[in-house]
């Protein structure tokens, strides 16, 4: 089934490269959740995330000829989304705890999910520096391993690991502090 999906994607890609717009729409449908999801958790604003995600697909449309396979497409989309988001975060004032996450659209809550805990975690991720945030999102949202994250963000794998460790420590400390106050 996975192989079939990959074949379909390769086919969509080569049709899109020959100018088939329906095939390109198929590629957008396949990857929009990942691209928009990464953008939303990076920027924490639905309108900015939508704009960024659209920009990513526009860039893809113009760079289609450089994409060699469905796997390469996934890698390309993650790299461009993360880099664009980091650039935009550097240009803008950071999101503060007060304005978070007025516009963010969470996924439909699971039955046993604790909404307060989820909101707190989202806020803590939003407080991370742009690069550390991208690392955490690629690890826990896109499910990439540190080697792949290093390739996507063009940074040494040890830097990725240290970002992950420091970010988890930061979150753990927050909860430990909270427990201490209780």
């Amino acid at each position, binding site marked *: 089934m996975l192989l079939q999906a990959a074949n379909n994607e390769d086919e969509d890609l080569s049709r899109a490269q020959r100018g088939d717009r329906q095939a390109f729409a198929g590629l*957008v449908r396949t990857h929009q959740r990942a691209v*928009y999801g990464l953008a939303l958790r990076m920027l924490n604003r639905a309108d900015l995330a939508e704009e960024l995600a659209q920009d990513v697909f526009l860039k893809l449309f113009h760079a289609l000829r450089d994409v060699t396979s469905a796997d390469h497409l996934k890698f390309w989309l993650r790299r461009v989304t993360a880099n664009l988001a980091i650039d935009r975060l550097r240009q803008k004032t950071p999101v503060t705890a007060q304005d978070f996450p007025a516009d963010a659209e969470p996924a439909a809550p699971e039955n046993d999910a604790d909404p307060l805990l*989820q909101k707190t975690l989202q806020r803590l991720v939003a407080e991370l520096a742009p690069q550390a945030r991208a690392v955490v999102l690629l690890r826990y*949202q896109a499910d990439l391993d540190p080697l792949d994250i290093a390739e996507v963000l063009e940074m040494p794998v040890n830097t990725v690991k240290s970002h992950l460790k420091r970010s988890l420590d930061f979150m753990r400390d927050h909860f430990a502090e909270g427990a201490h106050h209780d």
Partner: protein
Amino acid sequence: MTEELEKELRRSLRVDDPGELFTRRVMQRLPHEHRVASRRWLTWSAGLAASLLLVFGIRQQVLEQREQAAGLRAKQELLEALRVTSGKLDLAYQAVDKENET
């Protein structure tokens, strides 16, 4: 603790698919084919016009150079003719002078 935290992180970072409207908005932002075609036509036309101008300019320059060369040649021929005529006149004067002396 770490495993639990990682599990909660995965859960809290999930985002729903933005849906078909998002796909449509992306497709609306793509450059339209006829616009692409007309832009390509415009580029071709501009290129053709520039080439024609270049050819016309070069042709004009060659014609001017030819005219200048022809003018120069005519001037030289005229000067040569004048020089020859003046030489002949000198000879004629000398002959007349000699006759007068005798």
